[in-house]
């Protein structure tokens, strides 16, 4: 990707400094949902519905964080992750996640491909506490060995959402002619929606929007708030990034039984369920094993399993059978999956050091 740094930065920097409260005041998890590529309004409306579904999952957790959904108004320059991330890193967005996609037209309907990507800003944002990074400290005399794993993947492609021609037609008109009211009680009509809109606030059955030059409140049609795999999985990640382990666990438990999952997402649901358990002081090993059984070549799954073994040892009482058993399993896993790591892999070397320190 070639960018002119002058054009890319000078103007947005001023915008940022003039409106600092807009982006920098508190720890936020920011999600950009730009319009999906499509013919007509379909892609824009799909993105907006996903955005509203995500808004419906934001909760008030006592972690001094907030979730922010940014409804994009401009389509991406090209349909690519690079383009999605470039837009998300725009200083007016500074998003940590971006949900982007495309609607493919066929003679029998439309297939919608949605993707979720983390931006590099997730790790570089100095305002964030990076709660999602799992860290274990193994004491080593007067120092410690620090073991860390980051999220299992940086991007996901969801299974296609299929819409019949009738559903496409409904989707294209979903925002048309909704009455805009001047007050949240929805008593005084001030206009009607048409074309693109911008969302400001969301309540379970209504939202504050601006459309057609009019800002006000609209009553959301029934069924909008029902969650899709795309929105539930993305929402689980928002909760993880905010440190809302219980909230993330609830969402993941809800979608794990869905038939519309691919292997990659199924594996990561298991890993993330295990992670939420570990973050709550419980063992996540059985969830990690589920992931490994699905794909034993998945390095992230193996890393989570090994971390889980180390955590099990550290949770067990000194000189207990549970500790001996966990240690035996750790040694066995390190031997069995060493083939996935190169000789100079720092993480694997550190785990080996930790194992020797934890030897009963």
């Amino acid at each position: 990707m070639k960018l002119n740094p002058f054009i890319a930065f000078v103007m947005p920097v001023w915008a940022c400094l003039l409106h600092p409260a807009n982006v920098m005041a508190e720890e936020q998890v920011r999600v950009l949902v730009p319009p999906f590529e499509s013919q007509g309004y379909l892609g824009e409306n799909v993105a907006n519905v996903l955005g509203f579904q995500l808004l419906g999952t934001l909760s008030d957790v006592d972690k001094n964080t907030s979730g922010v959904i940014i409804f994009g108004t401009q389509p991406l320059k090209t349909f690519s992750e690079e383009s999605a991330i470039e837009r998300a890193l725009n200083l007016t967005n500074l998003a940590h996640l971006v949900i982007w996609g495309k609607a493919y037209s066929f003679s029998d309907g439309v297939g919608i491909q949605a993707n979720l990507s983390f931006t590099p800003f997730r790790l570089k944002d100095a305002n964030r506490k990076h709660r999602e990074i799992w860290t274990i400290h193994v004491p080593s005399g007067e120092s410690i060995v620090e073991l860390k794993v980051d999220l299992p993947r940086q991007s996901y492609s969801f299974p296609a959402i299929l819409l019949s021609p009738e559903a496409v037609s409904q989707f294209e008109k979903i925002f048309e002619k909704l009455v805009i009211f001047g007050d949240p009680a929805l008593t005084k009509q001030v206009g009607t929606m048409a074309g693109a809109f911008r969302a400001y606030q969301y309540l379970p059955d209504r939202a504050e929007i601006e459309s057609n030059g009019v800002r006000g409140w609209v009553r959301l049609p029934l069924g909008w708030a029902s969650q899709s795999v795309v929105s539930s999985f993305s929402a689980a990640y928002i909760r993880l990034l905010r440190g809302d382990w219980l909230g993330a666990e609830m969402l993941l438990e809800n979608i794990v039984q869905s038939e519309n999952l691919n292997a990659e997402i199924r594996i990561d649901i298991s890993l993330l369920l295990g992670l939420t358990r570990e973050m709550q002081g419980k063992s996540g090993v059985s969830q990690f094993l589920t992931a490994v059984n699905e794909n034993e070549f998945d390095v992230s799954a193996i890393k989570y399993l090994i971390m889980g073994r180390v955590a099990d040892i550290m949770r067990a009482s000194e000189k207990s059978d549970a500790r001996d058993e966990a240690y035996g399993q750790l040694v066995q896993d390190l031997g069995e999956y060493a083939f996935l790591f190169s000789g100079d892999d720092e993480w694997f070397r550190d785990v080996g050091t930790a194992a020797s320190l934890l030897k009963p």
Partner: protein
Amino acid sequence: MPGTVIKLRALAAVFAVCQLFAEQTRAQEPVLKASVWKYGGAISAPSQDAIDSFRSIVADKILMLRSSLSDTTEAKYLASLAIDLTHQNENLSDPLAAWQTEQALLLMSGILVSPQAGSGAFTVASTIYIGDLAQRYGSPTQSKNSFRVDLPISSEELGTIQDTHSLLIIYALTLDALSTNRDHQVVFRLIAMAHNISQDLQLRGRLNGDAALISKEMATIAQSLRYPAP
């Protein structure tokens, strides 16, 4: 003072974003080219639409694969995976010569079959040619250099079009990585991804023909790397 803190935080964020863009503009590896040749049989407007949809799905998927595969240091070179549409209107008459001349990872071509009465959807017979990659690697079980998948171009088959072509491309990338002695971590990453795609195809009842053959070959490669012969 809070204003100053906020401005400093804003500047820190700007600095972080500058770093990110600098990282993304580093020098690139030689191109791993997926070269698209003519998909014949498209003579009417609907058939041309179908073939355009198909090409767009495959091209987009290659871009997505490129992003998701190249996010580790060892796999950075996979960011050079690219789709080349220069020859999309030319017939592929001599695949080996084209593969060598283009220095391509693989060539894609095929034919569009009109829908049978009542079925509604066009079918594409897509052929992927990988030259002598399998021989270069010295595959003990596989010497085919051309693979074919037949798929309806319909909304229900969107996932299958993406998955079968992804599997074929990942197979070619695996053979390329093995024959150029890339880090085994890269190869196992490709194997892991192929395993997931095979599972998805299997669940949909679409792991058959050459897709099944490649899935099996990837499993064989995985075992040979995991338990190398003494």
